[in-house]
């Protein structure tokens, strides 16, 4: 069934085209259903592809097909083709699956929005771009998908662009991503320069992976670091992570789909796809691991002090992707993908649950104004609890297994980073418990006057079934997601399935069983400590605890202020200088100077043009006299 794989991106593309052509006429809510069906069709194709791949023996699970040549310039031949292997199929499975339920959720969530069809246009285009990114069989086509998801992210973050904050958040996301994209482009140039091809595998010379010997030493490290720069942009890692919290200005389904489940993991996917290249450079791997570990820790600390429910989840996402990057840097690609999949489930669930709460509270996002939602929103509460326990790392939910897998692998390579990861796990459990308690536990605060004098809110209401159904689906997935890769059945499960993709570059050193058990118990202890501390600190009715929410954390370690001082203000000064000195004085001065020279010359010489024919004749007479004098002088001096 592999030959139908190309239909996968085409269904969302078709949905996009239909909605572009007729979306406004179709309107609310049929446009949403069309978008959802397009993604559902893609999901079906993804399932068929998965079946087709499973039918093959382990070693032959690779399907590469070029459909047509995109362009052919000199030695550069870029086909439009797909690469289906366990990695890409895993990606498309959870991308299409999660996209489908989030589309379903959006049908109700976006109800009544004046730009309802536009939302689904962007969403379908996003799914199309994401599938192109994942399925492409060469770097350049991946880059097309990469840019496609970037621009869809920009459109969707600033979807409510009439709000200044949304418009500038979109710009911020776009600009931060551009920095990473520049790294991606440079990496493509470098790789093409050395290998003469952009195809991953197959084609002349066996593609990039067939010519890795050209990428040894510093070149390989440079290429890896440039790709990692791209990943830090797209996946919101230090130093380019600031855009993701601002991206929460977009509608909540967007935050769930793009800024939690799928797009932000594209960086991790890219690094996994290039695993053979990464394996060439130990220094590059160390950089990746350190950045990932530090990002996970930093973002987790910030998440502890955020008031906005979506901001907490945003920093949590950054932290979780930090884990994935840490896993990649430790050579544990399977663990990274495992965490990515399970994270897509539980973080998608958490965002949709938060969206449901926000929806029920008339778009109130402040945790300090929620409370006791368990009484009115049972479905949301139950499903959100599953997500909370999953991300906190309580067994037997998905988060415990996937995070444990990551930490196990890190432990074998970087003990310091493992310890940092463990602290991050405690913090994760803590801030999620805080979120859970503030939003769903305790006493209601939505019926009180807000901290800035806002009027009391209406009583929250449970969301309609199209919003509850995705919550249930994702809760089930988050609950049982761990079954994909239980530690004692490594060979037949996720690792056996993905193993061939990472053959040779996977750091293959599992601990003995006793060590695994010890680490698993440590993880569990960390999770329990976090949960207990969270309960202990946030259980009461008093929710204003400034000592627990220091300014330093609320202001994101002053990271934005740092960039502002380092880049923003100097750039502004430079721009001001250019505008008022360079432009006005030098450029305008030069232009105006030329104009005034011309004008002066003109007004001086216009007097010659008296308009009187006799005056012009006088000119002839002067010339004649001069000629005579000249002739005479020649006669005399010869």
């Amino acid at each position, binding site marked *: 069934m592999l030959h139908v794989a190309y239909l996968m991106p085409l269904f969302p593309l078709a949905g996009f085209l239909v909605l572009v052509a007729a979306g406004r006429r179709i309107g609310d809510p049929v446009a949403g259903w069309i978008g959802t069906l397009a993604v559902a069709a893609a999901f079906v194709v993804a399932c068929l592809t998965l079946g087709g791949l499973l039918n093959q023996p382990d070693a032959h699970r690779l399907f590469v097909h070029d459909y047509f040549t995109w362009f052919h310039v000199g030695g550069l031949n870029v086909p439009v083709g797909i690469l289906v292997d366990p990695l890409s199929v895993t990606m498309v499975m959870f991308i299409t699956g999660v996209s489908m339920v989030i589309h379903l959720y959006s049908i109700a969530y976006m109800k009544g929005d004046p730009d309802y069809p536009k939302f689904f246009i962007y969403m379908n285009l996003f799914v199309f771009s994401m599938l192109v990114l994942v399925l492409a069989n060469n770097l350049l086509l991946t880059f097309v998908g990469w840019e496609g998801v970037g621009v869809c992210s920009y459109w969707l973050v600033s979807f409510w662009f009439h709000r200044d904050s949304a418009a500038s958040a979109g710009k911020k996301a776009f600009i931060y991503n551009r920095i990473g994209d520049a790294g991606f482009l440079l990496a493509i140039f470098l790789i093409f320069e050395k290998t003469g091809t952009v195809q991953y595998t197959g084609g002349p010379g066996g593609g990039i992976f067939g010519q890795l010997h050209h990428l040894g030493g510093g070149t390989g490290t440079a290429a890896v670091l440039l790709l990692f720069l791209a990943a830090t942009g797209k996946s919101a890692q230090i130093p380019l992570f600031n855009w993701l919290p601002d991206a929460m200005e977009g509608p909540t389904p967007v935050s769930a789909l793009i800024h939690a489940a799928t797009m932000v993991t594209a960086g991790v996917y890219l690094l996994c796809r290039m695993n053979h290249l990464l394996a060439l450079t130990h220094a590059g791997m160390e950089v990746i691991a350190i950045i990932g570990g530090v990002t996970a820790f930093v973002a987790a600390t910030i998440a502890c002090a955020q008031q906005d429910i979506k901001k907490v989840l945003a920093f949590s996402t950054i932290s979780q992707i930090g884990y994935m990057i840490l896993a990649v840097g430790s050579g544990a690609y399977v663990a990274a993908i495992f965490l990515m999949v399970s994270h897509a489930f539980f973080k998608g669930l958490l965002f949709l649950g938060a969206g449901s709460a926000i929806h029920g509270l008339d778009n109130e996002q402040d945790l300090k104004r929620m409370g006791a939602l368990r009484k009115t929103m049972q479905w949301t509460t139950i499903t959100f609890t599953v997500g909370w326990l999953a991300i906190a790392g309580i067994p037997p939910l998905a988060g415990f297994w996937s995070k444990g897998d990551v930490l196990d692998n890190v432990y074998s390579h970087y003990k310091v980073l493992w310890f940092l990861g463990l602290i991050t796990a405690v913090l994760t459990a803590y801030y999620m418990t805080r979120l859970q308690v503030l939003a769903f536990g305790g006493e209601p605060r939505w019926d009180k006057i807000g901290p800035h004098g806002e009027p009391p809110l209406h009583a929250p209401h449970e969301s309609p079934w199209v919003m509850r159904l995705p919550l249930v689906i994702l809760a089930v997935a988050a609950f049982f997601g761990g079954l994909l890769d239980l530690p004692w059945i490594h060979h037949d499960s996720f690792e056996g399935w993905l193993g061939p993709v990472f053959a040779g570059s996977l750091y293959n050193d599992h601990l003995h069983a006793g060590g695994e058990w010890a680490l698993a118990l440590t993880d569990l202890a960390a999770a329990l400590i976090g949960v207990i501390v969270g309960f202990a600190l946030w259980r009461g009715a008093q929710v204003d605890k400034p000592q627990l929410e220091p300014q330093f954390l609320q202001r994101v370690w002053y990271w934005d202020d740092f960039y502002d001082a380092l880049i923003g203000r100097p750039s502004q000064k430079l721009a001001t200088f250019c505008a008022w000195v360079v432009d006005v004085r030098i450029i305008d001065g030069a232009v105006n100077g030329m104009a005034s020279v011309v004008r002066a010359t003109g007004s001086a010489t216009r007097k010659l043009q008296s308009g009187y024919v006799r*005056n012009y004749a006088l000119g002839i*007479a002067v010339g*004649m006299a001069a000629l005579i004098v000249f002739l005479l002088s020649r006669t005399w001096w010869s």
Partner: protein
Amino acid sequence: MLHLSLVVASTRPTWPDILVFAASAAVIVVGALGVVTSRHPVHAALSLVMTLFGVAVLFIEQDADFLAAVQIIVYAGAIVVLFLFVIMFLGVDRREDVEVEPLGGQRPLAFVMLAITLAGVIAMLATAHWVTGAHQVVGPIQGPITKSAGAPSGEVAQLGKQLFTTYLFAFEATAALLVIAVVGAVVLARRPGLSEKADRAEQAERAERSGQGVAS
């Protein structure tokens, strides 16, 4: 090479020649000054006729009989009459105020420039041995002009021969130029034709009628 001193004559001129030249020169200069200074265009035109006669005399004095005849017939007879005709036709007998010069610096500069030119030319004539590399282009004027009756004058015959052989192309070109000039003059002097007038009248009538239609 032909070296000629233009000032020192090879042979002494005879008294009649000197008298003819002096008289003609006086007529020419007086006529020229008359053209320049006359306030009335008709006077200027008559002065011009004077100059043209003087020049014609000097043409004869220098054995250019045919040109002298043409000078009288074409210039004095045709061109000046054309001038007079236009003057009469336009009725521009307004006197011009010669004393006043509206353009500052025009008059002094004109005098200075022409004084330089005149002085320069005369200085050249007086001081320089005129050196010219010109060979005879067409051929010498053959012998003294025969005055015998019946036989064509040598100079006239020669000129006619040259015009219709060596200068044939230029001659035809001048013919074309004259035709073009005539056509140009006709076009310039034409009044708006009757047919155009009729068109305009019709248009005006139609406009009036439509205006009435709206009014009624």
